[in-house]
């Protein structure tokens, strides 16, 4: 996307919002270019140590073909880079999920749209260097030294990466399961301990805790709750008498007529609609 702001033929181009515009070309001989919007990272609530306020450059509109490495190499001309983080939307960095081996990482995580980047430099001077980069001097993503694989080559590479040797897969499974077993064991241990605490000690005292495993009077899942309610309902229904008193009988008849009326009205509406759409012309 291009900003509707005027282009400055001069040095750097700054648009409202405090963003500087950098041009980006895929390769040296590409005709068209994308525009990157950069700005120092400045969020009041930022607590993450990963994005130090003074040294982080916030980049918008990174095209999908730029991977972390590409971004790193493009921006390293402004100074040494400590880390690069690409996300789909600006915001706080996500909490790290349990570390998965690469064969289990869901493939949808790879973003393919335009992304937002947080580039952390070693020195804070690099941020301003990037911001004052001349507008008419584009950055180039794919150079001869470090070409970005696109299209067929990329897909072939992806395919080959997808082929994981069985041993590696087995190893990943084993290590995860071991960890899992350990975790489970620990949990079981904890639970045993809790239960132990709830038992009477020699003197007949029970330690009362706030723990979640307190009363077990009510069934402990939503479904079980529903089931009991249904059972009670059924019991009540069975005791009821149907069509026993005159008024009950009268009511049933009334209901029947009301039902017919309702249906009649509904049909009338449907017909009116169909008539409006000329649905009754047979040919």
């Amino acid at each position, binding site marked *: *996307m*291009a900003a*509707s702001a005027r282009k400055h033929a001069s040095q750097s181009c700054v648009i409202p*919002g*405090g*963003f500087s515009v950098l041009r980006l070309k*895929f390769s040296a001989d*590409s*005709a*068209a270019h994308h*525009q990157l919007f950069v700005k120092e990272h400045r969020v009041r609530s930022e607590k993450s140590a990963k994005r130090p306020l003074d040294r982080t450059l916030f980049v*918008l509109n990174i*095209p*999908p*073909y730029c991977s972390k490495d590409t971004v790193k190499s493009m921006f390293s001309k402004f100074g040494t880079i400590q880390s690069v983080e690409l996300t789909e939307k*600006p915001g706080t960095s996500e909490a790290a999920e349990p570390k998965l081996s690469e*064969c*289990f990482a869901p493939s949808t995580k790879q973003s*393919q*749209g335009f992304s937002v980047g947080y580039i952390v430099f070693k020195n804070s001077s690099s941020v301003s260097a990037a911001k004052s980069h001349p507008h008419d001097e584009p950055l180039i993503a794919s150079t001869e030294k470090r070409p970005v694989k*696109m*299209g067929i080559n990329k*897909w*072939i590479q992806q*395919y*080959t990466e997808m*082929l994981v040797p*069985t041993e590696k*897969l*087995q190893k990943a*499974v084993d290590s*995860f*399961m071991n960890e*899992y077993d350990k975790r489970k064991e620990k949990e079981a241990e904890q639970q045993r301990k809790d239960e132990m605490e709830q038992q009477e000690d020699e003197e007949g005292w029970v330690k009362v805790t706030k723990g*979640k495993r307190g009363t077990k009077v009510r069934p*402990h899942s*939503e479904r079980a709750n529903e089931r009991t309610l249904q059972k009670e309902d059924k019991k009540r229904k069975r005791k009821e008498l149907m069509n026993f008193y005159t008024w009950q009988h009268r009511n049933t008849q*009334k209901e029947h*007529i*009301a039902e017919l*009326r309702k*249906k*009649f*009205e*509904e*049909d*009338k*509406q449907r*017909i*009116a*609609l*169909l*008539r*409006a*759409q000329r*649905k*009754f*012309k*047979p*040919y």
Partner: protein
Amino acid sequence: MSKRAPSSEDGVVRPLELSRGELYKAPTLEELSRLKEAESLFHCSLLKMQMEELLKEVALSERRKRLADSFVQRVTELLHAVPETPVTEVSDLSWLSVVRVPFLLVPNTTKGKFHMKPPASVSLVGSYPLGTCIKPHVSVDLMVTIPASVLHPMDAINQRYPRKRALYLAGLTEHLLTSPAVGKVQYSCLHGNRLRPILLVTPPGKDAGSLTLRIHPCPPPDFLKPSRFHPQKNNVRTDWFTGLEASQPGVKEPATPQYNCSVVGDHLPQAHLQYLTAFSEQCPAFKDGVALLKVWLRQRELDQGTGCFGGFLASMLLAHLLSTHKVNRSMTAYQLLRNSLHFLASTDLTENGITLARNPDSKAPSMADFHSMFPVVFVDHSGHLNLCAEMTAFTYKRIQHEALLSVKVWDDPTVDGFQALLMTPKPLIRTYDHVFQLCELGKLQLSCKKLGLMSELMDHSGNYVLAALPFILSLLQRGLGQRVQLLAHSLPLSPEWPVDQDPPKHMNQPPLSFGLLLQPEHATSVLERGPPADSPKAAEFRELWGPLSELRRFQDGGITEAVLWSATSTCQKRLVPQQIITHLLQLHASVPASSVRYVGGQLDSVINLGQELCSTGEEESLRVIQNYDDLSRKLWQLEDLPLSITSVQGAHPALRYTQVTLPKKKKKKNMEDKPCPVYICPIKVICHLEGSGKWPHDHLAIRHVKAAFHIRLGELLHAEHRYTCRPSATHLDVWKDGLVFRIELAYHREPLVLRELISPEGLQQQRDNAEARALELEIQHKPLLTSTLHGLQQQQPCFGTVCRLAKRWLAAQLFSADLSEEAADLLVASLFLQPAPFTSPCSPQVGFLRFLHLLSTFDWKNSPLVVNLNNQLSAAEYTEIKNNFVSTRQSLPVMFIATPTDRKLSMWTQESPSVQMLQRMVMVASESLRVLEAQLMDLKQLQDVRVVFRPPLDVYDVLIHLKIQQVPLVSYAVDRPKKFLRQGTNRGPVADPGGFLPVIDYNPVSKYLKELRVSRAYIALFFYDVYGGKVITVLWKPQAFEPQPFKVTDENVCTVPNVDAILQDFCILGEGLVQNVEPRTKTWTV
């Protein structure tokens, strides 16, 4: 009590909200009876109201009646003023100046005198005075009585009367032409009978289209004695007709029943009108009943042409039912219709004719006389006329078949009978499985000679088409035998021609069409087994089949006459009837194969798979399924798995016979090699593992356990059966006999685990989420659907092929991203499960046409499409689904398909199509249907069915052309490249199960599309024919070029798309795949 729905302007039915007071107020007596009637007589009050609306729609308006009356008045006055002419010889036509005689004067010589004289009387007859005339094509019949002095009592013989009648009509025409009060004037003939020409007159000016006046000249009633026209008497002499002297004077002249009938028929219109009026006055619903019956007949193309069951016969039928007390006078129109259909379905007029004559006079022919001369017998009240004289037995069989079908449909509460029976047209091409046309009808002249039909020809006064038709039909019926349920033929339409031209010759008639309703069990048999060689019937069999009949010895020891047709693949076997028909017509009727145009397999080429051998995929599907069965057996037998397998289910279209690109046997190919390797589609198989306490209760852990099982299963398969396997975290690929099966293990509680949630209070809850839904779809619903549809294929052998055609069309029109394969399969399945008003399709062609018709005419907005798989749904459940649909319409997908296992969600159409795409789909489908039907039925059209498989590209903004070497499925494209591409060649079956794995599931185009769709979803839509398309079309979204607010800042800054960069990105993303990017519109100038 009327409360309008909150908003019905947008065309959606909403649930009504009636107040308590309105619902529960005391009913009046009238209301009670109305409700009761609706409840007991009709399925629901809806049907009653629908009928009323339909009748309103077809009834003539007062304006039109006034117009008709005044026009009749004017024409009557004109007719009375016809000037007299001097008496001349009949053969002398010099007194006519402009107009020609509407009669084929063959042979030319006629005796007798003729002169014009004003008519004795002019009166209205037929449907208009009776009140049963309906729209469209309003025709008012006017009977003009020829004065007795013009005729002679001996005119009955040798076409003298019909010729005088035609001359009289020509005289009237000449007079009418002089007046400005009439508009267009044309000749025609009554029901295609050339002996009874009529004059069609329309009012002048803008009213021309609203009605047609038909002028019938008639003799004075009782002018000729009806006893002269006994069906077994002769009234056309052979020596006169042939022009030869009768060689043997002693020989009895052949009977001329058709001729006799048409002359008698001319005497009776007035009497018939009186007879029917009496009934119409007795029975209040008579007119409406006839109107409904006429609509029913018209939808089935039975109401026009020679030998039709027209409106007049319909009223006569009702009169018969009333007079025999089969229906009651106080019945409603709907009941009359139902009862007459029931009567037609259960009575065979070809065996037991019916008569309206209460006490016929002594000279009237007996029923046996009628049956000996006519195939269908329905005698009028005079006892002399057979009303069904021109009808062939086959037409009656067709009427009976339709009536039987309709009665069944009406008894089925799950079908909308009104829509199916009265609102759906049944053209020949969409009704019958195969259709063929006799093109050059002149050839039938030879047939008549060959079949020895001189007397029939004489009887039909030289109309060789009508004379030969019954014989050709019975010949074909004999030949086709058990292969067809029904052999139907189109009714030759009455020609219309200008008054200053001679009547068209018989040979210039439009082609005659025939329809075959196939019997799926027998139709594709290649063997015609006849009687044993020594039985007396053998000669008959040899006579029928001619040189093709051979003596053959069979495995059961019998030596019989037999005919063997050459066909190897299923698609060739389906066309065996074609071979039979062309052979028989050639042999017995000397109709050359070139004038038989058979329409049955024209669409096969689109889904043809074989290079040399023609095949529409049945054989390939079968091979996949056999391999799958083998694999599943082997999986069951594995013993060393820690947990046993509880079910093996296919979850891939190939395993339900509906895959378009069927896996062919292929050899592996190196990756880096150009062009790209052959696409090998993995066939997904779901294996459920037994439940056990050892399964972890955590979704990540479950995934890892499954991966471990994949590895283990792969090892076992390799160890026991030497299959090459490749396990991965999500599946196991097995390379077996040239096919790749992708086995996915499943644990039935996994979706539950995914949904589980512990609330802060420690309560275990189930919360739906997308991941769980997707998993459930994969491991539960897809396998179930696959096995159900596999079952359907076993009952309906062409289900799979229709699916493949339908999906090929959807993809070719670039809709495959919008309508999922499962949804398409379900749409096709509904055609087979609920074919009303048709029968289940037995050929791919008719199935495909009906698919297009369904897609284009179904009311997606207001009704759910219920696909009753395995017949699991009862009528009550249907209603429940419908009610549920109406009450929650707003939140449901635009295209709603319900199945027994999916009643509330329509899971296969949840995501797509969108409203706009559905609308476009409907539009393209109706256009395709129109083009295709015209092509199949009309010789003059361009003959290339692929036209409907080529999408219009002019609506798209950008075209991305692909390099065809990199399109792996290019060999399935609609227009395949002429040069065969080197794509990894097929070197026959792979013998040993081992060896290296090929490249599996590598399709650069789909990867490219996915990237495009993800990265550019906000600005454009991408369309592609997934089966080998060479171009990706791009449509900018309407809102794409509106400036968007720059999201990150609060300030009032807008951004607009950078189109040049976007177009360049298309190239960059698809490097090596994209040939060029062609922008076609300039809508982005911002």
